[in-house]
């Protein structure tokens, strides 16, 4: 993901609406096709008149009124159900058990992560993901302990939305999904695909453990909410417009993960070698040899 400068500038703009996504034929789900069609029609945000810096391109949120409504409903549900549940979870469940839950939840995500790594052509990462899965399955008691991390294979996640991005699909308008929260058309389509294609859930269903996918999703949600209790409280208390804050957080974070940069914000233009850059410019990968360490 973070390959630094090797990324082709503008390769994944999310703004290019007129290029048909090559892999469309691979998607069998009608719902996905509909989503993509929708995406192609409305994805491109318009630049504002920019006479001096900063050149601005406004993020696409044509559904803002509806999104704000869903956001408010989600917030209410969070306030009366999820946040209290996370508080109780933190207070009642011992830390060792919570770590186990987290490890298992992450472990179960690896098979689908592997599929996506391969689909994105990320061979090295797919190998790491596979190794990690094997090590933690064998030595880590089916994922209960994260042995692989200590061996230099930290957890990494990706998803089908990222795969679509790697295939050239733009992100489309911002969406707030009921319960699932911040998303966009592309990532929502990715979520639909995950719903039917996650190998672990498929295995559960084949084994007639039909309730397991739901339990798994519940555990993942609880774990996520618990770990973000303080952070979200802080954001909510300190933001001036919580909806807008979460929206920008989601979009920027997503762009960072997909390594597309936040191209809609061109706070500069060219670097010293004359190459055009997005802002923030892609972060070089220092993880392998960090100077001065």
């Amino acid at each position, binding site marked *: 993901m973070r390959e630094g400068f090797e990324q082709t500038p503008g390769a994944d703009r999310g703004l290019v609406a007129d290029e048909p996504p090559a892999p469309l034929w691979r998607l069998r789900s009608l719902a996905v096709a509909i989503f993509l069609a929708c995406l192609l029609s409305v994805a491109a945000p318009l630049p*504002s008149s*920019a*006479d001096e*810096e*900063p050149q*601005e391109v*406004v*993020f696409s949120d044509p559904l803002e009124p509806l999104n704000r409504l869903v956001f408010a409903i989600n917030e209410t549900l969070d306030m009366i159900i999820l946040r209290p549940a996370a508080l109780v979870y933190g207070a009642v469940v011992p830390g060792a058990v919570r770590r186990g839950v987290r490890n298992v939840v992450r472990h179960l995500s690896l098979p689908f992560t592997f599929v996506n790594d391969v689909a994105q052509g990320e061979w090295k990462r797919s190998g790491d993901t596979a190794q990690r899965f094997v090590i933690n399955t064998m030595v880590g008691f089916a994922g209960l302990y994260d042995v692989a991390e200590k061996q230099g294979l930290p957890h990494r*996640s*990706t*998803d089908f939305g990222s795969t679509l991005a790697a295939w050239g699909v733009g992100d489309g308008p911002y969406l707030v*999904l009921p319960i*699932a*929260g*911040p*998303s966009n058309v592309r990532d*929502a389509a990715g*979520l639909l695909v995950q719903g039917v294609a996650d190998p672990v859930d498929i295995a559960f269903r084949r084994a007639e453990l039909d309730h397991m996918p739901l339990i798994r*999703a519940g555990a*993942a949600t609880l774990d*996520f909410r618990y770990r*973000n209790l*303080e*952070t*979200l409280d*802080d*954001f909510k208390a*300190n*933001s*001036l*417009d919580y*909806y807008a*804050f*979460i*929206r*920008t*957080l*989601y979009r*920027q*974070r*997503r762009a*960072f*993960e997909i390594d597309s940069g*936040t191209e809609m*914000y061109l*706070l*500069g233009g*060219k*670097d*010293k070698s004359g190459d055009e*850059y997005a802002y*923030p*410019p892609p*972060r*070089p990968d*220092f993880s392998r040899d*960090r*100077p*001065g*360490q």
Partner: protein
Amino acid sequence: MKPGKIVMRPLRLALFLPFLLFTVAGSAAADSGAGGFIQELATKVLPQLTDPTTPLEERKARFRQVLNRDFDLDKIGKLVLGRHWRRAPPSKRAEFRRLLEDYLSGLYAGRFEALAGLDITVDGVRDFEGWSMVYTTATRTEGAPVLLDWRVDSTDGKHAITDLVIEGVSMVIAQREEFSAIVLEAGGLDGLLLKLRTRIAG
């Protein structure tokens, strides 16, 4: 992965990242480039703001000094207001600039503790025309390291921070999105100024 998870890591970090903002802003004496500037701020100024033996009020005052000396608040103000800045008359610009300083000071003042024990290492620097990106990693005794990138503008050897990018999330962009939403909703800049005044007044 549910999409919300994407936000997770920066969220956790973001709690204390803003503190970092303050943390790293410090003496401007370093002339060894933008990287040295950030490194020196991290090692010299951070401890001053997190030292529990110094009264909080004094640390707050120091932070405000740092904000004025090592951050380019004029430029940050322009960047976060975007097109609304260009349309605003000078009096409104001045008021916004003043409110922004108060707002940022207040926002981060309560978070100094979270910065204690933070170790900031410069990973590398990338130079652009007139500014540099200083890539750093912040580590604490517990928790995952946080990627912190500083946009440093340099004029005549004087460095000033104009943005902080936390795990890929630019604070300037975030603030601009938020402010812009408020301006749009209120139908003008006055709505944002009012909201800032209200927030600052507590």
